[in-house]
């Protein structure tokens, strides 16, 4: 299937592919930062005791997890203008990615926090540490260790999900690859070029996770 791969055409489109790659890198990075911020906020709201603050966070997480990203993307793309909000496609895409991934991240962070045994929190309490100190010094450092792998997993999903933004005419890696298919009727060449780009991003994230874990492991325990 890849036997007669036309590498000359692929090289010809390299500048476009490179531009797409950079766009995907940008969308994913900003999307990830936004998603982390939303995830931490939503998680903080779901684990605190006030019901009226918890409700909106729970509704947000449930709604996002229950519906497809494509539907969310179109909902913003066609819905926001009806509210009189006209934004560039790129920004809509970033908002959709952040909102989507943020909900999953909230759940990942929450499960990490809940995995810390209650006894450690009580030990912190009984030495006079405040709620914020217990979170900062005892709970979060450990929760972070257990959540890095699933969070990187979610980041990998986010990178691939950003390909859906091609559907609202954001030019990113997938869209750039489609150019080869459309201009030259060579869909396989386009897809291979695209796949190589995603593969690079995947390995970058994977090695970042590995490096982080090696640096932050508890000696003899991992």
């Amino acid at each position, binding site marked *: 299937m890849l036997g007669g791969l036309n590498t000359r055409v692929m090289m010809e489109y390299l500048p476009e592919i490179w531009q797409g790659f950079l766009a995907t890198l940008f969308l994913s990075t900003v999307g990830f930062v936004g998603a982390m911020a939303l995830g931490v906020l939503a998680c903080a709201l779901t684990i605190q005791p006030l019901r009226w603050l918890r409700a909106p966070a729970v509704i947000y997480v449930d709604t996002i997890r229950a519906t497809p990203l494509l539907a969310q993307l179109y909902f913003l793309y066609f819905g926001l203008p009806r509210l009189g909000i006209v934004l560039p496609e790129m920004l809509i895409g970033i908002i959709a990615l952040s909102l989507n991934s943020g909900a999953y991240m909230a759940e990942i962070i929450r499960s990490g926090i809940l995995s810390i*045994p209650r*006894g*450690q929190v*009580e*030990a*912190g*309490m*009984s*030495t*006079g*540490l*405040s709620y914020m*100190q217990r979170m900062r*010094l*005892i709970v979060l*450092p*450990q929760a972070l*260790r257990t959540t890095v792998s699933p969070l990187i997993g979610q980041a990998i999903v986010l990178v691939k999900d950003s390909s859906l933004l091609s559907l609202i005419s954001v030019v990113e890696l997938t869209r750039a690859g489609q150019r080869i298919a459309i201009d030259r009727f060579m869909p396989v060449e386009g897809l291979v070029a695209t796949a190589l780009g995603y593969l690079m991003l995947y390995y970058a994230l994977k090695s970042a996770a590995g490096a982080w874990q090696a640096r932050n492991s*508890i*000696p*003899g*325990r991992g």
Partner: protein
Amino acid sequence: MIEFSGVNKWFGSLHVLQDISLTVAKGEVVVVCGPSGSGKSTLIRCINGLEPFESGRLLVDGTDLSNRKALLKLRSEVGFVFQSFNLYPHKTALENVTLAPIHVRRLGRAQAEERGRALLEKVGLADKMGSYPHQLSGGQQQRVAIARSLCMQPKIMLFDEPTSALDPEMINEVLDVMVGLAREGMTMMVVTHEMGFARKVADRVIFMDRGAIVETAPPERFFTAPAHARTRDFLSKILQH
């Protein structure tokens, strides 16, 4: 130092503390025993506010426990040692011990470490300062936990079955530390079934059953001439071997 008057607590419909009135003086060592589910852990967990209660009054070192605002301050004066140690697994023994002094007492790191080292030496762990909890035996972990409480220089020490989770050969190393502490004049309340410990250092032994204090007596009288049938029944069960 500790003064319960008419304290009641329910878990749903279960009346876990029934009209508790009890005074512990400064420097006193009080051992609390009783069958499981009798409310003895709940009793001492009330003293540093780990368990709220529904009615009655509890004064600890002059602070009314119903004042939730004063709770953090009070907790920093009351040490608590758990059955399951509850060390912070991501911190070394020394870091476990110095965490609260640095962040609650605002001691400088050097000063906190000096104090922490001295305490770890005192509990016989001079060579384990840099070890993580999972690298320590149960007895060693519990001694770190005791040092962690002592590093706050508490006025009261509470122990909730501190040796129940330990292998038999490690129980004495922990009890020795506690005996030393009692002899130094620390005010202590200890939930335990280690009757040897009670005989050696307790000023009073309290027997609880079904959420109520059934009997309070000095250890000699408690073990040789308990007044209540339920106490006798309990003692016969734990002392027969």
